[in-house]
Structures are given as C-alpha cells and as structure tokens.
C-alpha cells in the first residue's frame, strides 16, 4: 500500500488547482457552519449564564402607582417566588457638548442591597451608596458613547425638575442586553441611556415615596407564567397596571431570541448549499480522474489489488481534499465567528462578557457533514472504478457518442459553424453535468445577492419608515395626556413649521382567542408628518370611527379582517373595554401598529381633544434651538429626533454590513471560482487532444479558445438568470423566516444587487478563462499526432 499512497500524494499534487478549488468550496460551507453554530452557541451560553448569574426576572409589570404595602400581597400570590418592586421613570438627559435630545430610563435599585432580581454587572466604578441623593450607575452603551467615567456628571430632568447626577459606576443588565428607546426603531447609544439610582433618591425625585410603579418577579418551580400574570393583572388593575408580561415578551430578550433564530437559519441553509456544490464538484473531478486512470486501475487490479483496496484509495483522496477544506473552513469559521461575536457585542447586544467558544462537537460535526457530502458525491465514480475488469480497463474508452442538438434539428444549424456546433453538442451530451454546473454557478450569484440584500433591505426600510411614514423631525411625548391647546404653543416656537398632535394609549387588542399587547395611535387623518401606508406603500387617510391595523398584526397575530369587530382593552385610566370595527390594513416593516383618527380615539375614550404628544417639522438650522426650548418644558417627557437617529443607526450598522459583505463576497467567490475553474479544467483535460488536433490543422489559439471557452460562456450566461431567480428564492426564504412582530423584511432586490450577483459569476468565469487561455498556449501539438486517447 505504500506505493499507492505515494501515488495518492502525486495525484493530489498534479491536480492541485482543482483540489484547492474544491477545498475552497468545502471551506465556504464549513466556515458558515462553524461561524453560525459557534456564534450561536457562544451567544446562547453567554445569555443563559448572564441571565442565571444576574437573576433575570421571569415576569414584569408596569403600573401607575401602588403603595409599597401592596408588595406583600403580591408576594403571597401563588406561583411567585421572589418579587421586587421598583420605581421607574422616563427622563430627559443633558450631556455637556451634545445638543441633540437624549431620553433615558431611570430605574431604582434597593438602597444598600444588591437588587435581588435583574442584578447589575459593574464594569467600572461601584454601585450607588445607600442614602446618596445624586449617584447613578450608567448603562455601558450610553457611558461608552459619551465617554463617561465614574466621577463625571450629567443632568436629568425628572418630573420637570433638573437634577445633577454623579456617575459612580458603569454596568450591564440582563434586562437591557438589547437597548432601545421606547417607540424607537433602532438602538441609539448616544441618544438613549439606562440609569440606575438608589430607590430612596429616585422615589423622592419622582414623588414615589413609599410607593412603586414597576415590579419584576421570578416564578416558583412549576408555576406557569400566564397564570401568575392573570393573578397579577387582577390585583394591579386598580393601581393603573398596564398588563404584566412574561420574559418571552420582554423586549431585549425577544430581540435577542430573534437574532439567534437568524443565526440558526444561517447555520443550516448556507452550509447545505456549499456542501451540495462541493459534492457535485468532487463527483465531476473524480469521475474525470478515474477515466484518465482507467489503465492504471486496470494494471493495479492485474497486479492483484482488491476492489476495496482500490476503492479505498480514491475515498482517501476525497477525504484528504475534504480534510483540507474542513480544516481551512474551521479556522476561517472560527475567525469569522469571533469577528461576528465581537460585532454583536459592539453594535447590538451588551453582555458583561462574551465567551467565544468553539465546541469541538461543532468541528466534528463539520468534518462529518463535509465528509458525508464529499463521499456521497464520489461514491458513484469510485464504484465504477472498482467494477472495471483489468482487461476492460486497458482498452481505450469507447468514443463518446454525440448527436445533433435540438437547436440544430430546429433548423438553426445554418447559422452555426463547426465550432459552435461543437459547443452545443458538448453541452447537450452531458445534460446533468451541464445543469449542475449552471446550478452551482447560480448559487454563487444567489449567495452574493443574499449577502448584499441586507444593506438594501435596511435602506429600503429606513426610507419607508422615515421618508414615507414617520416624516417628522421630532416626536415628543408629554408626561400626561394634554389639552390640544398645547400644540399651539409648539407651533409658536421659532423654527417649528408644522405640528401634528397624536394620542396614544396602551391597550390589549383581542379577536376571538387571539390577542396582542400594543398601543392604539390616534393620528391626524390628513397628517403630512405621520402617515399610515397602504399595501402599495402609498400614504392613505385613516378613516373615521374605526381602527386600521398593520398587515402582520391583522393577518398573522389577530387573524382579523376589515369588517370584523376588534376588542380593545384600554390599559389606562378606567380601563375601558371597547368594540372597534377594523376598517383597513396598513403596511409597515418595523413593529406593528393600530391606528385610528385622533378624534375617533378621543371620542371612544370619552375625553376631550387631548393629545399624548406631537410630531414636529422643524426648519433646518433651528433644531438645536427647538430642542433647548422644549427641554426646558416640564411637561415634555421625551423627544426623539429622527434624522440624527437614522444617522447614528447607520454608523452602528456600518460594521455589520461590511462584515456580511466581506463574508458573502468571499464565499460566493469561492463557489463561483470553484465551479467554473473545475468545469473548465475538466473540459480542457477531456478535450485537449481534440483542440490540439485542430491547432495542427491550422486553427489559431483564439479559435480553439472559442470552442473551449464558448462552452464556459454559454453555461455562465445561463447561470446568471438562474442565479438571479435563486437569489430571489433565498431572499424569499429569509423574508419568510424572519417575519415577526418586531420586524418584517421586504422582498426587495435592487438592480445593483442583481448586478453584483452576476458579477461574481462573470469575474469567476473571466478568471478561469484567463487561466485556461494560458494553458491552451502550452498545448502539446506534437504529442497528439502520436497518442490515442
């Protein structure tokens, strides 16, 4: 067997270009597999550990105000294990040298004690001291965005009163792994911060002495979240409870969960494509190798090597290629994985630590999947090799049988010279191989499109959200619903060109057995700033007297249609339960909403023309003046400036987009080049004699290149439209896989994305063509006169 092993290495060396090209495709599959699974594992482990160690609560509730004495009653509810009351206040923040509006959330921590639930992981500094009046701990995202260190100061407007706060620590909380301002679309670390303050100090500033307005609890073993929620809601209704919710509905946790789902999809769909293509390539390449080595195989068998020994010889060859691909893929995947985990940690999720960990089981799994794909792709060729009798093997292979192609029989032959016919007949003689080559190339195109889809989708969603639907420069909310007269004051501010009031009220929407916790937004029917969009994404007026729902909310969550009566359980004031007709469907990619006309909502709530907030259009240049004026107003609770939010969002995701573009380009390139280069090399090997004969007969290098590369060109051109269709299909899978109430992806493919997809295929083909052109120059013309195939 020693000699056979030497032959193995020489064969591998001899076909090193192809070996590398195939290994690169396997590498792509393994890299995506390892990247996604290891990042997934790392994030899940980190999340679970963080939640456990820092006692992330299982049920949360917000209410208006309840005396602290109520806590004992709540703790006695069946199913409650540990319950902690808190004071939570929305605040406006002031940071020196930063004039955009900043909103924040102040949460109380028990004086002198670690929070029993949702504990903080301090990254720097210390916790607040018991009895301190002005000490706060900042969320690390906000602190890092502004460069806050312990000892620094910032001001907060709490209940209209300005209070200077001293930063004593910087921390991460399991409750805010994903941080986003209420009502905002994207995280914005500069303009939204979470702060923790001593309970006593916060209660004093917020008029909550001896009272609480928020609670979190863990469940006793075996207790069911929904039952506890129902009991809790029954008690809290009298205290302005807005409905308790379970951990699975906690925003940060939900978003994290959706992101992890996305990683898992990546871990299945993409490696499957790569390994499928690799299996095909191995089949083709090995099939060719074996037909070239017929004689050698026959001689080995004549010498007495057994079938299994020869079969094993070729399986070893394949396994070596696989091993190469899996090793490189694991290394690349681990590198990508670390990069991805890092990008997540920096842009999206905040964990106190992120243990990137490559589970050896993943490597073994990758090796197993890679080998399985490779061997299944090769088995047939190997089987054929072992079946050859020595005598058969020594005979030349019977000449290939060709026939006129369908195109020629249709009468197109008169426009085709002999070289063109050769191209077509060659393609038609091996239809499956040609088809698989096209499919392989098409996947390169499709992968490239999927990689670039992300950025286009985000651009589109931002455009729809901020240039079609929410066009205001500033959205502000009042501390309490306010008379519509307040709008006139806003209009009078210098630089404010247009004001639209809105009324929003938290509510549970019910239809039959379906329900969803949300808010009902009363907006202006003829509003020009905040508009609802129809299915074609055109602005439409919200009709009077009824409600309009986002398509996803209507059809996927509530299963309600226009004409049905929807039950709206208001979670504010005297908690009315109303029946409202559904009048229409709107389209929205981010979040889900229920819209009414403001007048209709006011009427339903039996209140005057009150508003909860306003949308403002501001003349360019006046922004900071308006912010400053509004900042001084005690009734203004929070402000969100759209333009700056979008800008900062792009700064944050830039890294993500770059990372994905790099990965997808690399991988699509690997597949594209792997497929074209292998097809071309095999075509050259199969046809070098024929081409050399034509050279002897006086064909120029250009003319024989036409025959060889023409076939490549036909397959490449055929692959582009197929690839575009596949790209649409893969994006479609993504769109279906990531449809939830947080966001829906648009099925959107821009011309530039199609062009990028096509360009991967074309560049791979050109590169292979260039290599082949040089190989054609080295064709041995003399040898063909003397040898038979």
């Amino acid at each position: 067997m020693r000699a056979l092993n030497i032959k193995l290495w020489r064969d591998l060396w001899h076909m090193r270009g192809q070996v590398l090209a195939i290994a690169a495709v396997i590498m792509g599959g393994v890299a995506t597999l390892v990247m996604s699974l290891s990042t997934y594992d790392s994030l899940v482990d980190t999340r679970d550990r963080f939640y456990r160690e820092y006692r992330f609560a299982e049920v949360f509730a917000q209410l208006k105000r309840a005396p602290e004495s109520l806590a004992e009653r709540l703790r006695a509810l069946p199913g409650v294990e540990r319950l902690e009351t808190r004071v939570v206040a929305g605040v406006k923040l002031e940071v020196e040298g930063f004039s955009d509006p900043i909103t924040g959330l102040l949460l109380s921590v028990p004086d002198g004690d670690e929070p029993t639930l949702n504990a903080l992981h301090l990254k720097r500094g210390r916790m607040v001291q018991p009895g301190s009046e002005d000490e706060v701990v900042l969320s690390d995202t906000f602190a890092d965005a502004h460069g806050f260190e312990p000892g620094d100061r910032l001001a907060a407007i709490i209940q209209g009163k300005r209070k200077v706060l001293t930063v004593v620590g910087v921390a991460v909380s399991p409750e805010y792994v994903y941080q986003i301002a209420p009502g905002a679309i994207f995280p914005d670390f500069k303009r939204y911060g979470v702060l923790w303050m001593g309970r006593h100090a916060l209660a004093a500033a917020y008029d909550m002495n001896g009272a609480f307005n928020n609670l979190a609890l863990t469940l006793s073993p075996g207790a069911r979240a929904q039952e506890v929620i129902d009991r809790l809601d029954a008690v809290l209704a009298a205290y302005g409870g807005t409905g308790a919710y379970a951990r699975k509905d906690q925003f940060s946790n939900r978003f994290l969960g959706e992101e992890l789902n996305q990683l898992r999809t990546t871990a299945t769909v993409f490696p499957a494509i790569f390994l499928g293509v690799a299996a095909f390539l191995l089949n083709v390449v090995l099939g060719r190798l074996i037909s070239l080595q017929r004689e050698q195989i026959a001689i080995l068998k004549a010498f007495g090597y057994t079938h299994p020994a020869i079969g094993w010889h070729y399986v070893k060859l394949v396994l070596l290629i696989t091993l190469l691909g899996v090793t490189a893929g694991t290394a690349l995947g681990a590198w990508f994985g670390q990069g991805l985990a890092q990008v997540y940690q920096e842009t999206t999720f905040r964990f106190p630590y992120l243990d990137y960990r490559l589970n050896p089981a993943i490597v073994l799994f990758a090796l197993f999947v890679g080998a399985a794909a490779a061997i299944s792709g090769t088995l047939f060729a190997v089987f054929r090799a072992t079946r050859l009798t020595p005598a058969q093997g020594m005979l030349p292979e019977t000449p290939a049988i060709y026939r006129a192609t369908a195109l020629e029989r249709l009468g197109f032959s008169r426009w085709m010279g002999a070289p063109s016919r050769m191209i077509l007949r060659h393609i038609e003689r091996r239809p499956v191989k040609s088809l698989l080559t096209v499919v392989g190339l098409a996947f390169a195109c499709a992968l490239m499109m999927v990689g670039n889809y992300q950025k286009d989708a985000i651009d589109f969603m931002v455009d729809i959200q901020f240039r079609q639907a929410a066009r205001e420069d500033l959205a502000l909310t009042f501390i309490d619903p306010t008379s519509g007269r307040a709008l006139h004051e806003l209009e009078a501010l210098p630089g404010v060109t247009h004001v639209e009031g809105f009324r929003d009220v938290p509510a549970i929407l019910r239809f039959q057995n379906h329900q969803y916790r949300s808010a009902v937004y009363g907006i202006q029917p003829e509003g020009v700033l905040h508009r609802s969009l129809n299915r074609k994404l055109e602005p439409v007026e919200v009709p009077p007297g009824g409600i309009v729902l986002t398509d996803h909310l209507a059809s996927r969550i509530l299963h309600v249609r226009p004409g049905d009566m929807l039950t709206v359980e208001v979670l504010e004031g005297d908690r009315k339960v109303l029946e409202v007709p559904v009048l229409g469907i709107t389209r929205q990619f981010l979040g889900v909403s229920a819209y009414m006309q403001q007048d209709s909502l006011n009427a339903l709530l039996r209140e005057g023309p009150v508003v909860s907030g306003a949308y403002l259009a501001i003349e360019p240049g006046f922004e900071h003046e308006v912010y400053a004026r509004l900042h001084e107003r005690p009734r203004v609770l929070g402000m969100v400036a759209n333009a700056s939010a979008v800008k900062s969002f792009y700064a944050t995701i830039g890294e993500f987009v770059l990372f994905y573009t790099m990965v997808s380009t690399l991988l699509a390139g690997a597949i594209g080049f792997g497929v074209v280069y292998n097809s071309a090399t095999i075509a050259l090997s199969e046809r070098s004699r024929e081409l050399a004969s034509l050279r002897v007969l006086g064909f120029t290098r250009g003319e024989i290149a036409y025959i060889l590369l023409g076939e490549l060109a036909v397959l490449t051109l055929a692959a582009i439209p197929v690839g575009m269709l596949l790209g649409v299909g893969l994006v479609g899978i993504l769109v279906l896989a990531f449809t939830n109430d947080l966001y829906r992806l648009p099925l959107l493919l821009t011309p530039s994305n199609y062009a990028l997809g096509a360009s991967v295929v074309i560049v791979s083909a050109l590169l292979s063509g260039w290599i082949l052109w040089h190989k054609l120059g080295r064709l041995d013309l003399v040898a063909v006169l003397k040898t038979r195939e």
Partner: protein
Amino acid sequence: MNAPPPTEPVFIARGLTKTYRMGEVEVQALRGIDLELFRGELVVLLGPSGSGKSTLLNILGGLDTPSSGEVFYLGQRLSGASEAELTRFRREHVGFVFQFYNLIPSLTVRENVAAVTEIAPSPMPPEEALKLVGLGERLDHFPAQLSGGEQQRVAIARAIAKNPSVLLCDEPTGALDSATGVVVLEALEKVNRELGTLTVLITHNAGIAAMADRVIRLSDGRIAEVRANPLRKPARELSW
C-alpha cells in the same frame, strides 16, 4: 505513370538538426538533413522508431522548429517563423493525416471536413473531398459510427479539402489492419495523382515504400539512403 517532371522544389531543407531535452537527457533527433521535395511527388519516409522521421515531418509541417539549419517552403523561410506565421502556414498550405485519425467526435463526417474548409482560403466543398476518398454516402454519421478505415479516410478528406500544397501523413495505416490500410493508401494515391499534391508519408513498414516516387530512409537522425522508384506500384497491389 511517372511523376511529373521535377520543377521548383516545394520544400528545401539545409543542414537541419534538432536537439530535444528530455528530462536530463539530450536527444539528437536530427543530425544534419539536406532535402528537396517536389510538387506532385509521393515520398515515403522510412525508418525505425527514433530515426527522426517524425521530427522531420513536424518541422516540415510547421509544428516544430529546427535547432539549426534552414527550411524553406516555396522560397519562404519556415525556420525562425513566429508561432502565428506557422499557424497560418498550416492553415493555408498543409494537410495532416494522423495515425489515430484525430477526428472531432462531436462533429459529423461532413462537419469534420467543414471545420477545416470554413477557415481555409480556397477549399473544395466537403462533399467533394469525401467523394474523392469514397465516402460520399455517410456524410451525416458521427465518428463513433464509423470503422477505423472509414475514420482515416474522413481524416484524409479533411486534410485535402483545403486544397493543400502538401499532405503530411504520419503512420496513416499504423492503427489499421492490412486490408483496411490498403484502402486508405489507395485514397492517398488517388489524391496525389488527381490533385497533384505533394504527399509525404511516414512509415516504418517497408512494404508501403513500393507505392512512392521516392523513398527516403532515415537512420539515427541522418538520411541513410534516397531511392527513386522508376515505377510506382499501385497501392491496391501492396500487402504486408
């Protein structure tokens, strides 16, 4: 049936040598060849393997260049010509017939011939060339459907269809049995006679030499003997 009187030589070779490097060994394939070949002649190059006859044929056909010495085609210097010039020379003036036919399997009989006539400056119709070798019937068959002798006759038709000045045949009967070989040689003889094409035929089979106007025997890279046949023996009467 004498050869037409020698006029201007088609090929003139002077002091041709060729040295190959094969791995670490230097092989002297040609060691000084002087030669003239004339229009209408049928010349047989005879010699054992390694005698240099294929190398000589390759240099005459523009597939290879000599290490030293000169070769002229109708007064045009071939030695030292560029790759593109040699390609053009082969395309316009040379017909090749190979030992293993080297037909294009994906083209029919007619198309195999047409592949060459499409790029030649003044070809004959493919059908006419095929008729000349006795294959006027099976025009639309693919090579895989033909016998070896038939395939070789297609190859001859392909070589002559461009109306070449010279037909170079490297062991054209080497892969055929003797009866089939005779049919192929008859075709070559007919082409030589009817078209007056200079035909150079390589063989190690001395039995074929009788059909030539001249027999050039090579040995060890040199011309060992040139013999003119006063009377060409018809191919039909050959056997080996």
